[in-house]
Each structure stands twice: as C-alpha cells, then as structure tokens.
C-alpha cells in the first residue's frame, strides 16, 4: 500500500473542488482485483481536491498509448458521497487496447489524463427502482447503490446483476453485504452458466420475461436504470416494455462512439458468428447479414443498392428508417440523437443485433 500517497490536503487546495473545465490529471492511489479479469482503479486529484459528481457519471481517460487518440470512458463505481477519491472498475477485454494497458501497466503513483465528470445517466427522483446490469455495466449502478447506502435512508431497490458465470459477478461480496445491511435492497444475481461454481443454487441463464416477472412482480411500478453490453440492454429494454415499464421510466447508459466500450466488437460473444435476416421493404428483397459486418457492406455484397458515400458514419447519405429489429451503430456524427429516436439509423456503420426490416 502506497501510504506516502495519502498525505492529507493542506494549505491552499484544502476544500477546493475538482474543476471539470481545467483539471485533467488523476493520480492513481490503488489498484484492486475485483475478479479474474476486472480491476478497480482508485484515483485522487494531485492537489487533493474533492470530486463533485453524480452517481452514474463517467470520466474520459486519454492515456496516449502509442501516441494515439484513444479516449475511453469509464463510469465511476465509487460513491459520490465519498468525494476524496474516485474509483473506476474496468474489465479486461480481449483485444481491447486501453483496458489491457490499464490492467498491465497502471500502478499506484502513476498519473493519467482524464476529463469529467460527464454523462447524463443519473438517478431521477423516484420511489422504486430496478437497477439492471450486465457484466462491467455494473459500475454506474454500483455507484448509485453505494450512494444509497451512504445516505442511510430507507430505499426500495431491486438490484439485478447478470454475468457470464459466478466467478464473473463483480462486487459479489459487497453486494451481499449491502443486501444484508440496507433495508429495502433486494439482490438478484444471474450467471449465464455455472461452470465455474457448480454449487450455485439460484437460477442461471439469460434475462427473460419469465425471470423478471417472477423476481420482481411490481416491475411496472419501478424506474429502471440499465447498463450493459448492447445486446443485453436491447433485451432488457424489450422485456421491460413488455412487462409494462413506461418509456419515460426507463433509463439506459448509451455507450455511443465517444463512450467506446473497449472491445473489438461490442456485444462480445453474445452475437459472435451469428447471422440475421435483413429485409428491404420497398425493394422486396431479403438478404442474410453477418453480425460482424455492417448492414451496408452486406447489402452491397448481396446486390442491394442503398445510397451511400462515406461508409464511415460521417455524412449521413445512407440514412434509413429501421422498421424493426436493432443494430449496434458506431457513427461519426452523421446522425442526430433526435433522428435515432425517430427510428433512423446509418447502415454504413451499423451491425445487426437481430433480424431487421429496413424501409428501402
């Protein structure tokens, strides 16, 4: 433990607040193994300023590995009511440059460039919550749960965390502790498979309508905060809608391009090597598209012509209406959130996550 880093703030900076506009350096004071492939990194301000942020927000780290522009965003997992430090919790992603660098190289006493806090995924005022997270998507909702514990007020939260296997369940012990300690905090853990712990006594598998309606019959009354890989979030959104959760009560952390999940293909194993049917409603054509290719390139290969130009999500020439299905889109500003909300997408930078019907 690097105790020399724990000198208290003295003199001029005592009581000062980290300024998001001018402060850009964090000092690492602790690295902690959460699971076999997840670590937590704790940072302080070099001047020991306090951090003012809301649970659910993230910081953008620019590590400058190989001199590249490689900004990655990591949600804060620590409680905003412990403002002396911030903790981010990062999963090592196969092929992910930044997460691997952090896991292999970041040690206490090192400084990194970071800006924040950023993001709007914060807890609205509500009486009853469902926090639903998949994998490392737990970080923002963990910050919220820790904050609730720190305020020591009665809560009504169902905390559902899904992971690949029991040994992948992040913060497992702390969550058990919270559930023990915090009145009105109900914990559900859902490993996809139990190979790493055959004695797992609960249900295993993926989130489903049946599981959620059994585990939380009053889900329709709850405000939902969801974070996880894109396919997980898509499934959760569909299930919640089916079980009567109003859109206005459903909030998810959208990892758009700026908030890159440090992964070779977002969604990871869940959609690997899959293919989907993509139907072009106006042309009456249906093609098969791989989950690892963009809709535009699959369409081109199959002889379906779509207007296009940049093929990079910059210009918006290929903008089309997505009648049904969902995609993983990584655009470069060629489409507005308002247009996405209205059901449009850019085929040139979107990979299918399900069968699609496109108005073309």
């Amino acid at each position, binding site marked *: 433990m690097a105790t020399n880093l724990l000198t208290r703030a003295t003199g001029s900076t005592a009581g000062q607040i980290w300024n998001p506009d001018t402060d850009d350096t964090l000092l690492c004071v602790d690295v902690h193994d959460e699971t076999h492939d997840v670590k937590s990194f704790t940072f302080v301000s070099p001047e020991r300023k306090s951090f003012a942020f809301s649970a659910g927000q993230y910081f953008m780290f620019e590590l400058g590995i190989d001199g590249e522009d490689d900004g990655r965003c990591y949600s804060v997992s620590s409680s905003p009511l412990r403002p002396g430090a911030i903790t981010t919790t990062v999963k090592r992603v196969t092929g992910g440059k930044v997460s691997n660098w952090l896991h292999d190289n970041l040690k206490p006493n090192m400084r990194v460039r970071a800006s924040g806090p950023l993001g709007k995924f914060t807890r609205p005022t509500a009486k009853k919550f469902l926090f639903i997270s998949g994998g490392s998507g737990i970080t923002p909702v963990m910050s919220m749960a820790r904050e609730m514990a720190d305020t020591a007020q009665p809560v009504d939260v169902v905390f559902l965390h899904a992971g690949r296997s029991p040994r992948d369940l992040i913060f497992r012990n702390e969550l058990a502790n919270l559930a023990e300690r915090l009145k009105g905090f109900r914990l559900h853990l859902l490993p996809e498979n139990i190979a790493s712990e055959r004695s797992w006594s609960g249900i295993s598998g993926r989130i489903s309508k049946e599981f959620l309606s059994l585990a939380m019959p009053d889900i329709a009354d709850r405000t939902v905060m969801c974070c996880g890989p894109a396919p997980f979030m898509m499934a959760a959104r569909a299930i919640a809608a089916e079980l009567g959760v109003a859109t206005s009560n459903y909030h998810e952390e959208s990892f758009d391009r700026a908030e890159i999940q440090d992964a070779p293909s977002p969604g990871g194993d869940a959609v690997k090597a899959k293919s989907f049917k993509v139907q072009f409603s106006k042309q009456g054509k249906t093609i098969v598209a791989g989950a690892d290719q963009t809709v535009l390139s699959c369409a081109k290969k199959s002889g379906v012509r779509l207007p296009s130009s*940049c093929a990079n999500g*910059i210009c*918006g020439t290929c903008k089309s209406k997505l009648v049904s299905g969902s995609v993983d889109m990584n655009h470069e500003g*060629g*489409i*507005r959130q308002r*247009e996405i909300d209205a059901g449009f997408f850019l085929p040139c930078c979107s990979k299918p996550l399900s069968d699609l019907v496109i108005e073309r």
Partner: protein
Amino acid sequence: MLNKFPSSITPLLDARVEGHSLPAGLYTRDDVFQADMDVFFSKHWIYVGLECDVPEAGDAVVIDIGNTSLIVLRDDDEQIRVVRNICRHRGARLLDAGATVVSKLVCPYHQWTYELSGDLSYAPHMGKDFDKSCRNLKAVNFQSIGGLIYVCLSDNPPSDIATLKKVMEERLAPYDVRNAKVAHEVDVIEKGNWKLTIENNRECYHCSANHPELCVSFVDLDFGFDPESLSPEDREEAEAHFAMYNERTTIWEADGFSSAAIEHTRDVETNFRTQRLIIAGAGESQTEDATAACSKLLGRMTRRDLGDMHLWGHNSWNHFMGDHAVTSIVIPLSADTTLVRTKWLVHKDAVEGVDYDLEKLTHVWVETTNQDAGLVARSHAGILDPAYEPGTYSKFSERALDDFATWYIERMRAHGY
C-alpha cells in the same frame, strides 16, 4: 453640356418631389427592382428570422433573398450560424427551402460534407493532396438583436446597426425573444412592390376603414391625424388619448421600461423606429377583444399592461406585447410581388389549447395582413396605369411615408444610382 447620369434609374430618382409618393417606375420597373435588391437587400442590414426559428442544435432553416440563399442554423455548441446555401464544389444548393434538421450539411449532389461550423470535413474522390481548408461554407455577417437575426450580405455592413442593437437589446430584454416559441407562421404573397408593402405599413390612415379587427386594440391616431377633420367628440377623445400617452409613458419609464419614441428614419443607413404604444380597450394585446391571448406571458414579463413595443425596419414590422409578439419580414420576389412572412411568438413553454387558443392568438393579424395584401395590390395596379402621377402624402398621417421615400432616394444615390 452633356447630361451624364450614373445609371438609367437616376432620372427617376431626380423626378421624386419631397412630400410626394415615388414616380411610377421606381415601383414597377425591373431594373429598379434589381437595384433595390442590390442596395436595400444586399448592402443594408435586413431582418431575416429569429433565433427561436432554430431552437435546438441541428435545426436549420433556409431563407432566400433574390438569388441569394442563406442557411440559418444552430450548431452543436448551441450557437447561431448563418452560412450561404451553396456547396463549394460546383455550387449546388445544399438544403431545400424551409426548415429541416441536419447532423452535418451534406451536399446531395456529390456528398461533400460540412460540419455545422461550415468547415468542409469530407470530400470524397478529391485525392490526398486536396486542400479542404479553403473550401468551407461562406459565412455571412449577422447580428442577433434581442433574438432577431439581421444579416448583411455585403462585406462592408453599415456600422450604425450598433445603434439599433443598443436600443433594442434593452427594450427587448424582458420579452426574452431568444427563448420564445414560434406558435404560428404565415406567408402571404402580396401582388405589389415591396415599397408599397412598407408604405402601407407606415400609416394608419387606412385603418379605420379597412381593419375593423385591428382597430379594437390599435389606435390609428398614433401615427398622426388632422385635428380639423375630427368631429368635436373625436377631438376630445384624441386630446384625452394623448394626455394618457404622456402619463403612461412617464409611468412605464419610471418602472424601468423604456418607452419613448426613437426615430432613425432619415439621414441614417439603418432605418428603424421604435416606441411603446398604448393598446386600446382592454389594453393587453392585439386580439379581437384586446385581452391577452396567452396566459403565460413572454419571457420575464410579469405585466399585461406594458402596451405594444413596436419596431419598424425597412423590411419588417414587429409588435411585442406582454403575452405574445407578432413579427413580419418583407422579402421582395419581383417588381410586383412581395413575400410577407408573419410569425406569432409565445413563451416557449406555452401549450396550444391550454395556455393559448391559436385562433384568438392569430386572428387579428391574419385578417389585417390579408386586408393589407388587398390594399397593396390595389395600389400597385393603379400605379401601373399610365394615368398615375405621384400623390401628396398627408402631412398629418403619412409623414413616415415621406421619411421612407426620402430615405429610399438618399440610399439609392449613396450607392451610385
């Protein structure tokens, strides 16, 4: 000695007599229309729209002035920008007329892609050595005055816009027009020359006979009258009215609301007049019964009794009231057709059918604008008649027209005609 005229229009300018309307050719000739577009719509500041026409990042609206097309947009930093609607590749129009939402400005022809700042960011198939930096969209000089967007298409815009800005930023502040909402918008094409549209707007001599709806709230005497032509009762009423003006203006000013008349209509480049006018009857708003049409007041207004802050420009008229505002833009289309674009503004959070009734909000100025279109067409048709000769302006009720005609001639000469 040989008479040499700078232009074929000069004799028409010379023929204009002080106190009289303009010679026919200045209203009707195509070459004069071209000169008008050059002088009054390219070299002077003109009012083209509102910040609240583009309330959200990515909102854009196209405004055409003669052969010029402009894009007014709000960029991702929530800043207003005005750029010319012309691709730097081979000149194609980027956006179609009207309002739209854009993520980037992309030319439909060859997909040259511009950031909302106007910077060219993507030009396919132009080669590695192509220098994008000098191919940005052309920016236009513009000023937002209290949320009203004025542009000047020339590189040497008149500097006295500063006077207008100084006066109106203060007067418009409480109305917070920057954050208002356009509740309704109507385009009317008038069959007449733009100067007749403006002249018709500059007098209320015609009001009592032609604008029954407007006259409920608008006092025609405000823009002049001949005391001799009033009946004894009317004269008494007029005297009482002007006594009330002095009293109200004093009270308004004391309460911190600038109200006095400010006229910059002669010997200026940027032509404007403003004054806080009294609203007749119930005194609140220009509606059928002179009561407020919108229960949510504009901006930071807390009172309905602050009359009508009016503002004239050479291509606009505006009325800012406690509950709503009416703003009109005039854009000439040809020598004998003129676009009048009128917008009704309310507080941005006002909800139609809850806080205001659209019919009540718009009725008076929809009717008035249609009536005016008829009067302008009637006027233009008569001026085309060979029997037309310039007529005398009333020194009581048409002084503003004389000012406008005189300013028009001065500005034409100043620009070499």
